[in-house]
């Protein structure tokens, strides 16, 4: 697992999730801190495309060898894509949490929710 990193361009949720905005679509994933705490991820159970997610609520499960954890949605909206590559290679969540380890893409229902998320500096200072 690589060194800790928290890209500037992301928006952070205090529960160790990130969102990358592209217009009214956001990509979600978990942070370096989250994957490190979890240990080796061995299974990712994605939600279905078309289902809705609500900010601060669980939308998926990620399992390491030892434990299962819920993944919290940083923002609300409708799932438009899930990272199907994680079915065969869930370890991407550990190896590249901000790239190959992305989890879902969501069409945001309320883009203004972004204001409630943390910037890199604020998130990292809370770790």
């Amino acid at each position, binding site marked *: 697992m690589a060194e800790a990193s928290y890209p500037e361009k992301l928006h952070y949720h205090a529960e160790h999730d990130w969102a990358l905005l592209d217009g009214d679509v956001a990509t979600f994933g978990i942070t370096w801190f989250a994957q490190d705490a979890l*240990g080796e991820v061995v299974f990712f159970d994605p939600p279905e495309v078309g289902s809705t997610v609500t900010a601060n609520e669980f939308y998926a499960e990620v*399992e390491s060898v030892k434990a299962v954890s819920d993944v919290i949605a940083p923002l609300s909206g409708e799932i438009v894509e899930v990272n199907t590559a994680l079915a065969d290679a869930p370890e991407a969540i550990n190896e590249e949490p901000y790239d190959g380890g992305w989890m879902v893409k969501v069409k945001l229902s309320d883009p203004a929710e972004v204001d409630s998320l943390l910037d890199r500096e604020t998130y990292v200072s809370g770790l």
Partner: protein
Amino acid sequence: MTSPTLKRTALYDCHREAGAKLVGFAGWEMPIQYDEGIRSEHLAVRSRTGIFDVSHMGEVEVSGPDAEAFLQHIHSNDVAGLPVGGAQYSLLCNEDGGVLDDLFTYRLSPDRYLTVTNAANHETDFAWMRSHAEAFDVEVTDAQDAYAMLAVQGPTAREIVQAIADGPLPARMTAARGIVFGRSALICGTGYTGEDGVELLVEPADAAAMWDEIVRRGAVPAGLAARDTLRLEACFHLYGNDLSTDCNPIEAGLGWACKEQTHFIGSDAVRAAREAGPQRKLVPFKLTGPGIARAGNPVVGGGEVTSGTLSPSLGIGIGMAYLPVTRATVGETFEIDVRGKTRPAIVAAKPLYRHPDKETDG
């Protein structure tokens, strides 16, 4: 983050140096895994050799003219049938046949035994043994602080330890005192991984030097998490998960470790359970689809998972579950409610993983 009241083993500094993640476990600050991670540690034990610090396990020494009679009274197995130098698995049962702990006992001499307890049960086991010792001419001693315990496990484990031992290593399920790396050790041909290897009971002051040398010779430090996935693949019970006072040895599949004719505490209840036949049975299972079942997940139609993980060797979800006896047959399919999702599973034979070139040993 860890509480200052946690006890540390003699190998604490070795763990820190090896990059261990340390967690509280049964009152001890123990390595759950090292830098390389659980899977890599697990596979190292299956293909080469791993070394575990299991110094949190407790030891109780029983000695005196009535040592055999006393242990026969409290242990479920036939202690009289255990030769000097032998190792024996047995259960500690209460009067109702409920399982208080599972134990390994080594007969050190005709009237001296060492029993290894689970860390979480050590104090209650010791109190239990003490409280039943009055009628016997024995001395029951808490020897937990007298020993550090290293488990060296894997296909090349014996080779590594043999190279620094002053004589031949004891065979499987036997134990002997010997010299390892110039230091005295009780060398035991036992383990909890399904691989060959030895467990070394040594003076705490000698443990770090021995650990370092065995690691230098190629053993991979492995943590409690890998120990758990390894034991589950081998279908060894974990007390607190698969065993408790709420289950009897027969339904747990441990009738073989109970010799009711020795009249151990709980033997009447165990005999009755054996004669009546179990209502439920502990079985190993494999998931036939995606997902991982965990301890506490209910079985659809009755039953419960007591241990569950992803098998690093097999790449699928595995575990043990109590099933109604009518469904507890190898090959029977069933479903597990994994956090609201139904996951198909099949009752499997023991062990869930067997070393490819190993035909009979288990």
